[in-house]
């Protein structure tokens, strides 16, 4: 089963020299990786843009989570090499920066630059380590044994990073001896804080990310629980009722229809059709009531809408009466209702494909019906037409002009 995977930019774990930024970009953009590397190098000489860009990608773009990726080369030889390359690349990068800075005439003196450089390399090693541990976690969760990087190596690398950073900072302070003793204390504190921040930075960053992930997972779990509770309270109960009443088709139909209505309201977050507000809502509420009482299914289609007033309330009442008649006498299970508000004109049609009757033959027992529909509409300044013939269903048409306001 293929799932369309959303293409995201990742840093490559296989094709990498430093952090896999170029490899990832090449894969994402489908361009030769060498071209991208050359571009970065060239950019690096344009005021260091390439370096800044690379650092930004490194920080923002996540590593590819290679959980269960089948097309991965065998661990071992291929995987070791990048690590050695890393060191070389880091040294080259550092050398390049030094040369660049010198070239630009920004040389602040060896006493300042070399300690800073040592600290920077230390920080780079530590930050890269954070990436490794992240990758190790994925590998561990994907049932692969965590053999590729023994804990000892991790410890050594972190220690080396810390030492480098420390040496760099101490060195920097030591060479700035000419400064007053007062500023020295301040500098020492500042250096300690910055150093700590640099060393623990990656972990803070990952921690914040993990927390956000966890929060998202919790929200999802909550939604799921809510959904389960709702399904249990409504749908399962109704299904149980339906099984119990399997012998009574009308009752089953009524239950199913009511449940469907309830579920739709819930799913599509529609305000409960309680009848107040607008014409369309009121007709839908009336239809729901009649459905419940008479176990029919009534489809309401509304085009346009209008706020309820006295006249429209009368229209709703007449429409309801027509729906009741269709449900009671037509002998069919489906009734179609169409409500249209077109400017000042309001029209409602209630139609069934049932047995029908001859309007000319309407006798005393049907009087109530014609009174409650036709009479009501007329009293409120509208009109009603009942069209029917035996065997051809019935349609009630209600017309009303909206009160001009």
């Amino acid at each position, binding site marked *: 089963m293929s799932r369309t995977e959303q293409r995201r930019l990742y840093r490559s774990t296989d094709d990498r020299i430093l952090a896999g930024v170029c490899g990832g970009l090449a894969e994402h953009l489908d361009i030769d990786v060498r071209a991208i590397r050359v571009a970065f190098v060239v950019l690096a000489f344009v005021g260091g843009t390439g370096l800044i860009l690379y650092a930004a990608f490194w920080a923002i773009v996540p590593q590819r989570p290679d959980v269960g990726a089948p097309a991965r080369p065998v661990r071992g030889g291929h995987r070791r090499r990048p690590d050695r390359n890393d060191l070389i690349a880091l040294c080259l990068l550092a050398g390049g920066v030094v040369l660049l800075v010198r070239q630009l005439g920004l040389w602040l003196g060896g006493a300042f630059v070399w300690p800073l450089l040592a600290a920077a390399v230390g920080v780079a090693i530590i930050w890269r380590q954070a990436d490794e541990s992240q990758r190790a976690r994925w590998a561990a969760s994907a049932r692969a044994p965590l053999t590729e990087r023994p804990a000892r190596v991790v410890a050594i690398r972190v220690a080396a990073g810390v030492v480098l950073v420390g040496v760099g900072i101490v060195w920097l302070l030591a060479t700035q001896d000419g400064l007053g003793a007062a500023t020295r204390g301040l500098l020492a504190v500042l250096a300690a804080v910055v150093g700590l921040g640099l060393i623990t930075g990656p972990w803070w960053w990952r921690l914040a990310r993990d927390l956000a992930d966890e929060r998202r997972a919790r929200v999802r779990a909550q939604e799921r629980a809510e959904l389960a509770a709702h399904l249990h309270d409504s749908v399962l109960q109704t299904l149980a009722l339906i099984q119990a009443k399997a012998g009574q088709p009308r009752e089953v139909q009524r239950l199913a229809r009511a449940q469907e209505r309830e579920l739709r309201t819930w799913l599509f977050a529609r305000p409960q059709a309680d009848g107040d507000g607008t014409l369309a809502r009121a007709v839908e509420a009336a239809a729901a009531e009649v459905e419940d009482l008479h176990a029919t299914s009534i489809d309401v*289609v509304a085009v346009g809408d209008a706020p309820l007033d006295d006249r429209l309330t009368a229209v709703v009442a007449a429409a309801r009466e027509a729906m009741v008649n269709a449900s009671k006498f037509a002998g069919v299970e489906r009734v179609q209702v169409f409500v*249209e508000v077109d400017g000042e004109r309001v029209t409602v049609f209630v*139609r069934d494909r049932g047995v029908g009757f001859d309007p000319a033959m309407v006798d005393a027992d049907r009087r109530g019906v014609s009174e409650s529909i036709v009479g009501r509409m007329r009293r409120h300044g509208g009109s009603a037409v009942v069209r029917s013939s035996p065997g051809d269903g019935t349609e009630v048409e209600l017309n009303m002009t909206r009160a001009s306001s």
Partner: protein
Amino acid sequence: MSGKPSVFIVDDHHLFRSGVRAELGDSVEVVGDADEVAAAVELITERKPDVVLVDVHMPDGGGRAVIEAVSTTDPSIRFLAISVSDAAEDVISVIRAGARGYVTKTISGPELADAIGRVAEGDAVFSPRLAGFVLDAFAGAEAPVVDPDLDQLTNREREVLRLIARGYAYKEIARQLEISIKTVETHVSAVLRKLQLSSRHELTRWAADRRLT
């Protein structure tokens, strides 16, 4: 079109597929079914049915994905969308993808067979609610009319849609308007074309506003 139309069913609910097969009975020839998009596309292009009955809601893109994938290679295969939902945005997205009709799953067996036959002959099938939606979408003067041929309905088309919304079958509409059934079909097909091609972006906005469910 001679004989029974051949039908392919795409729906991820097993119960529904077997239900439809039973409901349709002998009125059509069911040539296969599928429960997911990729398999559906493959089987449909292989078996070339007249009509594909396709569920709107499925994983991996739903009916829309099937329609788009098949119609690039086999434009002659026609689609009838079926759904439990009447949400306007769903309806509109499959119609605009190329479905020639839209019905809800509560439709009765004979009505469904009738709708399939109509789609097989190249006509359009509108449910009452779809008709109501189209009337709503093309109503009013708020939306800019870029192309009057596409962005507006004629009076006759409006009349036909109103009757569909009132629950009239094509035959009944023809009698009511004193025109032939063929003419009714022509009107409905014209509306379908406008619905598919009109750039009236109101269509989707209305869908959200009206929340037709």
